[in-house]
């Protein structure tokens, strides 16, 4: 079918032109060049020199930091994403009960999230989790003394991850908006049928919020894989590289050693890993997400 456009429709093109130019210059061109640089040796002093697969071979066989950073990053994602989403959902469900003063609680729970991965909040985290910091001070009330939250390589990653978990606000708001849309008749009918609370949660609430769950999972995973500021400010990647993430490896190679080709190769590997993870979530989602319009209407 040939779609006929009226003359005035082309005006629309003018309105989106800024985006199109921006997309071509600031996204598409860099995307292509990034691929090209990843096969080259480029220090910005001389033009890029084609080196074939050398960067990738070096990455997987010689760079000792790469496997470490990759593993740490996956660890960071696996700790933060499920914890953050569970907290968000749990709190959203409680806030969805019709209680007084809910708005105040929502505000309080959301407040930490407005700072995102900023320097201010990372500095705060550093002071809270220092050996002589406030967290240990609090624990000493219960007789637990001197945990080296940021200095012990076995737990540093966990302490750093908690910062991201603390900021579950926007996932929570999304869940809450969805929960409010679930028709109460569903629960009433279930009550009449004598369903237990657990049953109602697994058979009504979870399927109804599954599209939001899916969205949160994808966005949080993508963001967590690219995390930089928090760990960079809190621990600087230490102790003994136990919180050193892929994003820091890319940063160090690009802006400390000016190995742009290698950094581009690293960023492509990061990109592909994120794609694999999101593809996995997309694939699996067909089994656990429920869309209302699947039934009847189509």
């Amino acid at each position: 079918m040939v779609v006929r456009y009226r003359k005035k429709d082309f005006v629309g093109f003018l309105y989106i032109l800024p985006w199109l130019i921006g997309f071509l210059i600031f996204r598409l061109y860099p995307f292509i060049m990034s691929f090209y640089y990843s096969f080259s040796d480029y220090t910005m002093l001389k033009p890029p020199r084609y080196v074939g697969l050398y960067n990738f071979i070096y990455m997987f066989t010689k760079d000792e930091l790469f496997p470490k950073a990759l593993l740490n990053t996956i660890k960071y994602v696996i700790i933060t994403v499920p914890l953050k989403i569970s907290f968000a959902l749990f709190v959203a469900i409680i806030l969805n009960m019709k209680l007084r003063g809910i708005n105040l609680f929502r505000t309080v729970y959301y407040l930490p999230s407005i700072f995102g991965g900023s320097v201010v909040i990372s500095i705060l985290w550093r002071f809270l989790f220092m050996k002589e910091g406030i967290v240990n001070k609090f624990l000493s009330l219960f007789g637990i003394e001197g945990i080296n939250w940021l200095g012990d390589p076995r737990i540093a990653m966990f302490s750093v991850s908690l910062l991201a978990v603390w900021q579950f606000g926007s996932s929570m708001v999304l869940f809450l908006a969805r929960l409010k849309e679930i028709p109460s008749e569903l629960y009433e009918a279930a009550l009449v049928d004598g369903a237990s609370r657990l049953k109602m949660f697994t058979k009504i609430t979870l399927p109804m919020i599954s599209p939001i769950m899916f969205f949160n999972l994808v966005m949080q995973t993508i963001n967590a894989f690219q995390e930089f500021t928090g760990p960079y400010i809190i621990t600087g990647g230490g102790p003994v590289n136990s919180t050193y993430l892929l994003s820091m490896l890319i940063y160090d190679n690009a802006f400390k050693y000016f190995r742009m080709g290698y950094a581009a190769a690293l960023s492509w590997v990061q990109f592909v890993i994120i794609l694999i993870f999101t593809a996995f979530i997309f694939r699996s989602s067909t089994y656990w997400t429920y869309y209302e319009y699947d039934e009847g209407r189509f």
Partner: protein
Amino acid sequence: MYSQNRKAKNTISLLLTYAFLILFGIFMIYPLLWVVSAAFKSNDEIFTSLSLIPRKIVTDSFIKGWQGTGQYTFGRFFVNTIIITVPVVLFTIISSTLVAYGFARFNFPLKKLFFSIVVATLMLPDSVNLIPRYILFNFFGWMDSYKPFIIPSMFASSPFFIFMMVQFMRGLPKEMEEAAIIDGCNSLQILIRITAPLCKSAMISIGIFQFIWTWNDFFGPLIFINSVEKYTIALGLRMCVDSAAAIAWNQIMAMTVIAMLPCIIIFFAAQKYFVEGIATSGIKG
């Protein structure tokens, strides 16, 4: 008897729920309150008690902290951050609205493809573009200036905002616009006189999010700005924490509080736009 039992049970569960909400709320908010109180505490007191009320209120932490590392004061970093943030916010609002108007109200060739690119860039990780973008900006001669932040914002560089605005505009009634066409208004007049005023709340949402992101941005300034003279607050704070004077904890806390203040004020002043903004676009955070 049965109903009485049940009532008692309900009261208990209600009390438990509130107890949880309050305890959890304290746990959530305590760190933020703690920074504020620490800014007013003396250095020997900061880590000795959990109390939020300083034994002796100190204010010279703000005065000394403001002086920064000597050469440049925090006033300078503050002004620099404003010089970046204000144009970025304004340009983002304007460019996102224009582009969203194009997508929401016109039917031009390749529109579907372009819009699916917007949605795709919403999902695709951006860090893969980092290196070439840096090289490109370097080639443009934008290093150590605020151009890497301001110029892309003129080109609706944030797909989140385009998406959010398109969603919003699609929800608006078209009758007034159709009436305006009959009255002989052109599309730009319609946008300025009718559509844009109706989109005010979405524009405010965009402005707030962009403000907070730009204000708190660390990675951008870290790679694009070299001279201390042009540092933003985020860079200034990092410098203070890393410098030898880091024993002056209350000064760092004081400057952290100052850096947080604009975001907190905006959050409380415009809370409803936050919730609307997140709910319509699922913005990250």
